[in-house]
Every structure is written in structure tokens, then in C-alpha cells.
């Protein structure tokens, strides 16, 4: 039986709903419906949209490629090193993105600790599209690693052990048994990481700068347009809202699906 909350609880709960809902409502309210196409067809909007899709998807692919092995390692470890690496993975979530950008500059900038070696090889990450992807990878990797690691820790290891006993190598067990069984968590982690990469602003503008077609992603274009053409900024913001809503719709099945199956177990 469900116990219904009293009226005063409902009243208090309404306040945050308004705080969360009002900005979304206001954005749609102020949307220049008659001129949507014009705003989206502008050169700045088109290149920002294309660049955002390319960079955020690249960052997500990198998160999966490098995040899976890292999550596997973290899920099996118990030592001090594991805890240190996990803390390192959490850092970009709690760090203000602009601080992440400054740190990226000091590490991978042209005169940075790592960056000066890259510069000798003729590689400059700052002001490049690769720099945007690096900034997005930096901020979104934690979301992927933490979701997948949690799933690995909660996974039923029986199948994996059976496969191992029957002579399958650890790598074969991981790809053939483990990965398929945590597929929902991998999908949910990827979508979360992608959403974070898509919305990335602070680290990108600090580390990669802002240039149309090369480093000016959707959030940077919104920021720039707000000063020159606020109506177009609202339209681009709405594009990001639509993408965010799509992510939530996707996650509703994936993410909550995982949680539900955990609860049932």
C-alpha cells in the first residue's frame, strides 16, 4: 500500500518543480516560432550544430574505448591505487569546468607539462577541434566509468566464472560474457557521457577557445549569440533542450531499467 504524502509536503514539493520547470517554459515561450528556420539556417548555427555532433560523438566513442578497460580495472581492485584512481575519475564531476579548462591548458597547452612535448612534434591541441574533443572527454569520462563500474560490481559473476573454468581467457570472458550482460549500463553511461560532452562549455572555451567551424560548439555559439543576436541564441538553446529531452527519454528505459532490475534482484 502506498501512503499518500500530506498536503503540506505537496506544497513544498511544488516549489522545486516550478524552479525546474519555469526556465524550460520561458525558453519555449520566448522562442521566435515564425523565424525558427532562419535562425537554424544561419552559418553560425549550422557549423555549431555539426561541430557539436562530431565532437560530442567522438568524445563518447573515446569514453567507451578507454572507459571500459578502466571501469573493469576499478571494479576488480580494492587497494589504495584503485581508490586514488576512482577519486581521480570523480574529480571532473565536482570540479568547475572552467578550472578543468585551466588545468588542461597547464597540462596540454603549448607550454604545458605534456603540451610542450606535443608542440615539438608539431601538435597543438589548444584552439583545435581535437582540443574540444579532449575537453569533452575530460568532463564526460567520469559519467561513463562510474555507471559501468557500478554495473560490473553488481553483476552476477557466476556466468563469467563458468566461462573462465571452461578455459576462456579473461579478455574473452569480458567481451563474450561480461560486456553483453552489462550492455544496458554501457548504453546508459554512453548517453550520459554524450549529454555531458554536448553541453560542455567552461573547459572548452578556456582550453580550446571559440572559433566558428573549428572550436565553437553549440553552447559557445549560444553564449556568443546572446550578445549579438539574443533571439537566435534562444533558438539554439531550444535545440539543446530538445536533445536533452531526447536523452531523458532514452535513459528512462535504459537507466531506470537497470535500476529496476537491480531492485528486483
Amino acid at each position, binding site marked *: 500500500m502506498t501512503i499518500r504524502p500530506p498536503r503540506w509536503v505537496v506544497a513544498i514539493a511544488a516549489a522545486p518543480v516550478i524552479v525546474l520547470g519555469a526556465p524550460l517554459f520561458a525558453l519555449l515561450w520566448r522562442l521566435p516560432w515564425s523565424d525558427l528556420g532562419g535562425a537554424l539556417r544561419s552559418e553560425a548555427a549550422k557549423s555549431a550544430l555539426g561541430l557539436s555532433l562530431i565532437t560530442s560523438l567522438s568524445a563518447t566513442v573515446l569514453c567507451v574505448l578507454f572507459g571500459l578497460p578502466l571501469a573493469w580495472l576499478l571494479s576488480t581492485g580494492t587497494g589504495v591505487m584503485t581508490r586514488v584512481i576512482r577519486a581521480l575519475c570523480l574529480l571532473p564531476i565536482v570540479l568547475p569546468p572552467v578550472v578543468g579548462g585551466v588545468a588542461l*591548458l597547464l597540462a596540454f*597547452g*603549448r*607550454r604545458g607539462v605534456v603540451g610542450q612535448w606535443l608542440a615539438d612534434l608539431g601538435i*597543438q591541441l*589548444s*584552439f583545435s577541434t581535437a582540443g574540444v574533443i579532449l575537453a569533452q572527454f575530460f568532463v564526460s569520462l567520469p559519467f561513463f566509468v562510474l555507471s559501468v563500474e557500478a554495473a560490473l560490481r553488481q553483476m552476477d559473476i557466476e556466468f563469467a566464472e563458468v566461462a573462465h573454468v571452461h578455459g576462456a581467457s579473461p579478455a574473452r570472458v569480458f567481451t563474450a560474457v561480461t560486456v553483453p550482460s552489462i550492455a544496458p549500463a554501457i548504453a546508459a553511461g554512453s548517453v550520459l557521457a554524450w549529454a555531458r560532452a554536448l553541453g560542455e562549455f567552461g573547459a572548452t*572555451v578556456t582550453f*580550446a*577557445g*571559440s*572559433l*566558428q567551424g573549428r*572550436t565553437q560548439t553549440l553552447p559557445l555559439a549560444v*553564449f*556568443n*549569440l*546572446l*550578445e*549579438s543576436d*539574443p533571439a537566435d541564441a534562444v533558438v539554439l538553446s531550444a535545440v539543446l533542450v530538445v536533445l536533452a529531452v531526447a536523452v531523458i527519454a532514452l535513459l528512462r528505459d535504459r537507466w531506470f531499467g537497470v535500476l529496476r532490475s537491480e531492485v528486483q534482484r
Partner: protein
Amino acid sequence: MCFAGCGGSSGSVVDVLAASSYTDVADELETLLEDDLGINVRFSFGSSGAFLEQLNQGAPAAAVITADDKTMRRLESANLVDASIAINRNDLIIVTSDSDVGRAINSLVYLAASDDAVTVVCADSAPCGAATDQLLKQAGLTLSPASREPNVRATLTKVILGEADAAIVYGTDARVHPNLRSVEIVDTVDVIGRAAAVKGKTHGSDIVESLRSAAATQILADAGFSAP
């Protein structure tokens, strides 16, 4: 908005929105205004391009200082401020880092022709960016910047950090860091800094009056802002 506890001896704080190029004269101007008017003054900085939206949304500023007249005209025609006055003149110059590529830069023509130099300029929505576009158009040159930064100080920072070899900024900005090398631009573009009182705010017109006093002009001149 000012909650209990903020402000000093005379109570509330009066805010002034200023273009980021005024960052280094703010302390002295604040002291001058406080001595002149007996109020607590606090400068906050940003790109002049952003002031229209901020004032539209009710930013609690009594006065506003923009880096150029174009952005001030927009504030005036939106009826957000009273009639403005010119407080200084500034010009565009090139600053370079001490890298080999940076040191080789000796003119705007050289910079535009250089393939090696990583150059940053201001966003076209910021006054320094609009002036840069005008400068290049006048000179009949094209530049391929690595980035268009949100305001003049962000642009300058990229050179100070060594990420960029060169930037086009205001003459006054070149003075802020010892490692910066400045290169004059022949037939440069002047920008006129303007101040105005925000409509319906107390102290606004007093601040603007004080900003055109001899003492304020001297502070600005010491920082390299010439008389309008």
C-alpha cells in the same frame, strides 16, 4: 541585490558595469568615486556586448562604462541609460609573446601574411572584435585567427599564457604584463570609451560626472587611456 551585512560604512554598495579593458584602473576609480561621493562603489567587468542583456534583465548597476560608442548607442536607443559622455580614447595594437614566432611580428601586414603565428582576436560581439574587423577591412587584409575570445582580457590572457603568439587588443592592455611585446598598427582604429547613468538609479549621474573630472582623467591617462 544586497542582503544584510554587505556593504561598508555608508551601507549599500553602488555597482558600476565596466568593459573588461578598465580592469586595471578600477581600484583607483573606485577610491576616487568613494572619496568624491561618499558611497561604496563596486566595479564588475564583462564584455560591453553583454551589458544590453544584463541591464534588460535588471542588473543592479547605477552606471555603465562601455569600451566603444556603438555598444553605448545600443543602450541609449533601448532607453536603458541617460545620455552618455565620452571619457577616453583607446586604440588597437598587436601584442606578441616572447616566442620566436612572436618576436618576428613587426606589423599588421606581416601578421596577416604569417602562416606560423597563432593569433587570437576578440569575438565580433565584443567592441574590441568589432574594431578589429573594421581595422582589417580598412587595411584590406584578412586574418585567420585561431580563436575569437569573449572579451579583450580573455584574448590577452591567451598570449600571456603563451598559447597564442599574437593578439589584437587595446593599447592600454599591452601595459599589463611585462612579458608582452607590443607592435603599433599604422592607421589604427580608435575606440571611444563612454560612461552613462542607468535610468532611474540614484548616484548614476554623480558617478558619470565624477568620471569626467580632472582627477579621473588623470587616472585614465596614467593607465594609457588618452583624452577623448
